[in-house]
């Protein structure tokens, strides 16, 4: 005789709510970019008929540096989730400036503020193998941390086939942990669920790898660390993640951050 409890629908016990999610960035030398969606209550099934219900395409997004402001235009990008990107074409990010974001959607208004920190250059990025016979390898980066400044960093990578940069694992750095001014560290490739799928911590021969060293402020550091915690630990019973991501969006979820940046390209031996 087998008795088993039916899978209880816990949703009846909690308040389901949908909030507006903002994933926004402005890098030094680049235009602003914002993705907008509404969060999906846990009971909903998302498919091709209703996925667009959670994508916000008709918001009015304004970015301003205090002097100039621009309203972002929207375009389709099938490599992103959500598949619509609001982009700027007038305001280019400049180090030291403050940028405000204002989103008007239906009757809601969301706001956020950020600044772009000074960039720090990547000195070098190299593809190294544990054994010369391997067909896979790791990226090793070097840069100099300015001693008189407070800096927070993020190291991210992208290969030619990937649509976006992926933050490296444990790659959100606080300069108070550095032993000296020269930083040399190995990179742990981050997770990109879509479109990459299965996670591998290394790179492969034949990849064309872009390595970006971003400078960010404390809010962005906290956000990306909480994002990493959620991804790594959501199924982990030892250190379970049960806290929401930190946000700097007033009235919503997500992040609006300014970044300094320095990018290097790393070539790898051709695939055999």
């Amino acid at each position: 005789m087998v008795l088993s409890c039916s899978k209880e629908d816990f949703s009846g016990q909690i308040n389901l709510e949908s909030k507006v999610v903002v994933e926004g960035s402005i890098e030094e030398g680049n235009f602003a970019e914002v993705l907008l969606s509404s969060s999906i209550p846990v009971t909903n099934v998302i498919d091709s008929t209703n996925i667009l219900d959670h994508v916000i395409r008709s918001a009015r997004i304004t970015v301003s540096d205090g002097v100039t402001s621009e309203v972002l235009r929207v375009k389709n990008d099938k490599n992103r989730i959500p598949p619509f990107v609001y982009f700027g074409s007038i305001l280019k990010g400049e180090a030291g400036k403050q940028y405000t974001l204002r989103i008007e959607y239906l009757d809601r208004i969301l706001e956020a503020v950020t600044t772009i920190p000074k960039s720090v250059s990547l000195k070098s990025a190299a593809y190294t193998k544990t054994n010369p016979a391997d067909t896979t390898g790791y990226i090793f980066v070097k840069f100099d941390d300015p001693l008189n400044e407070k800096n927070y960093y993020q190291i991210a990578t992208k290969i030619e086939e990937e649509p976006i940069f992926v933050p490296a694992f444990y790659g959100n750095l606080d300069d108070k942990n550095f032993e000296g001014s020269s930083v040399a560290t190995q990179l742990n490739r981050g997770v990109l669920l879509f479109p990459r799928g299965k996670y591998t911590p290394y790179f492969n021969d034949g990849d064309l790898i872009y390595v970006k060293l971003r400078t960010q402020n404390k809010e962005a550091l906290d956000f990306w660390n909480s994002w990493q915690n959620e991804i790594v630990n959501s199924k982990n019973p030892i250190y379970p993640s049960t806290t929401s991501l930190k946000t700097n969006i007033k009235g919503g979820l997500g992040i609006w951050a300014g970044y300094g940046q320095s990018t290097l390209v790393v070539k790898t031996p051709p695939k055999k």
Partner: protein
Amino acid sequence: MLAQSKATVSGNVTSSDNENLIGVSISFSEKNLHHYAVTDSIGRFSEKVSFGEVELTVKHFGYIEKSIVFNCLKDTLIAIVLDKDASQLKEVIIDNSKKAGITTLSGGKLSFNLKELASVPTILGTTDIIKILQLTPGVQNSGEANGYLYVRGGDPGHNAILYDGTPIYGMSHLLGIFPFYNTDHIKEFEFDKSSSNSKFGGRLSSTTSLITDKKIPEKASIQGNVGILASQLTVAVPIAKKAGFYLSGRKTYIDEIIVPLLSSNSEGNDIENTKYGFSDANMTFLFKIAKNNLLSVDVFVSADKFKIKDEDFDLRTNLKWSDFTVSPTLTTTLSSKISMTNSLYFSQYSNDLKMDQAAIQFGVSSYVKDFGFNNAVNYSVKNIQFESGLQYVYHTLQPQKIDVENLSGANNTSQNSMIYANEVAVFTTIKPKLTNHINLELGLRANYYNSGSKSDSYLNFQPRMVLNYLANDKYSFYVTYNKQYQYLSLITTSSVGIPTDFWFASSNGIKPQSSNEFSFGSNQNISKNLVSSFGGFYRLMKNLVEYPYGVTQFNETTTLANDLLAGKGKAYGIEMMLRKNNGKFNGWMSYTLSWSDRTFDKLNNGNTYFAKYDRRHNLSLVGMYDLNSKWNFGVTQIFSSGNRFTLPTSWYFINNNPVKEYSEYNNAQMPNYIRTDLSINYFFFKTSKKESALNFSIYNVFNVENPIYVVLNLQENNEKTGLFAKQENKTLYRLLPSISWRFKF
């Protein structure tokens, strides 16, 4: 009846081996009056008797009945020594006047006799003290994969386990399958739900005292249990007439058996390539130095190893934890009125976690070490019993030592901060009998704690009180009040009882935890065989400690003290128990209805939320049946409400990865927990000196799925047209059969 025509007859009952006999029945026969007394946890009794001739009849199972007749003219002190009944030793012992498995002591405390509880079903056929406690009122069952105690709405770290007076900090073996203590080495244990004895301090909730055998072995003997996952062995060796020792050992051999068992039972393949094992050893050395001095030296060592590989995230985890205690104790009987114990102890608990993830090596280790001295004196003044003493302990803690190594060696971070603390306590318990019907237990404990700086010094007073009203032979009522302070806290990070939890001592401005508890209750002797109790409690706790971040925030090296959150909590409830102690069929029913909540400024926006183990209803039924001298059966039935957890409310994408949004803390409840266990013992033979029996147990006979935690995963639907969030209940194990052979020669 005028008070002046009565005198007090008091004293103690010991065996001819100088062992205090608990629960001995003494009947007082005067002219037309019969009344009874029962000896307490150290064998003492006290009873008012009219002037004139009185006959005392002392009865205790396994001993020859003693009768004392005398003319009582004034307060009298009697020391009664009972001789073992040799005729019993050869016969099979299954008797209607069996010793009770559970005895009620004053104020709701319970005393457990392990031998009598051997037929309570357990996972592997070996008795488990924690699992038995979870079948009594006020104690929540912790489900699978968790060996902690949750008593009266408190946290796991609020409970003390004393091994012959020495605190043990490690609390469980992984998965809760294995009992933490080898009960062949333990004679009995007492459960003080509120640590009401003033000898106990430093914990907000219960104290469980494990007592090893203090009788010097007369003959060599061996006993043990051979099971499918682990085996244990205990030898008793006499050295001379005045000395001897007991030595026990236990070891698992489960990797060949348990891993395939777990992988086939759990949903999904998160638990792959798992390896687990533990071993432990106990030794008790006894030496009767002089007629009145007994030296006992206890040693306890336990070590666990756990390895797990998770391919999804390229993660390898290696976890080790261990306990070590050594404690010499001298018990001195200065006179028939005064006895004293002095003991020194060293107790250490450490755990070590190493994780390899991608190219990062991450290590967290933690330990707590205690050097202590305990002194307690039992004496009586004008026939009022007193117990006083002095305790000192020096704590050394390394709460968390974190080492992060990027394989290149550059960005290495290290976090370490040691805590050193001193704790001194003096205590006194007075047990005056106010009237014929009312007696009082008054305890006062004063604690001084200091850890480093002046601001981390605390002088606290902890009053304890039990007021007993004995209406008659059948009914008694009690009211209690306890104040407790706790200086060391157990920080739990996991949602299951995996021992990455660590101990922290009040320092750097983190204040000691404190609680006030009121309880009331009543004990009823319904008939010769039936005993019941009913009561309620209300507990307020302050300066509780939470650490909600887990250790993944380690790239931010802040001091632990900055990350700890302080808050308060309260718990209240009603507890009842009905026990049948004698006869072929005996057992008990226990029911608790309770609430437990927490309020922390920095959690849940400062709103009060349910504590994790706020399980509204908790019902346990235990039945043991002796069919004949060859067979006995045991059954356990548990119904309890599920515990609380935080369920995400919505999800969204950041950087093309799904993440979850959580709203209120502990906003959801796991399904109700239902479990039935069965055990069958077949005795090849059984006498008081020899035994050979086969135990067949089934844990969770009806194969009910009781999940240990819930996760939300994104999955494609069957048509592959869409995504949805699927709740997955992670169940560790369901039906577990076991067979083992128990022997004693």
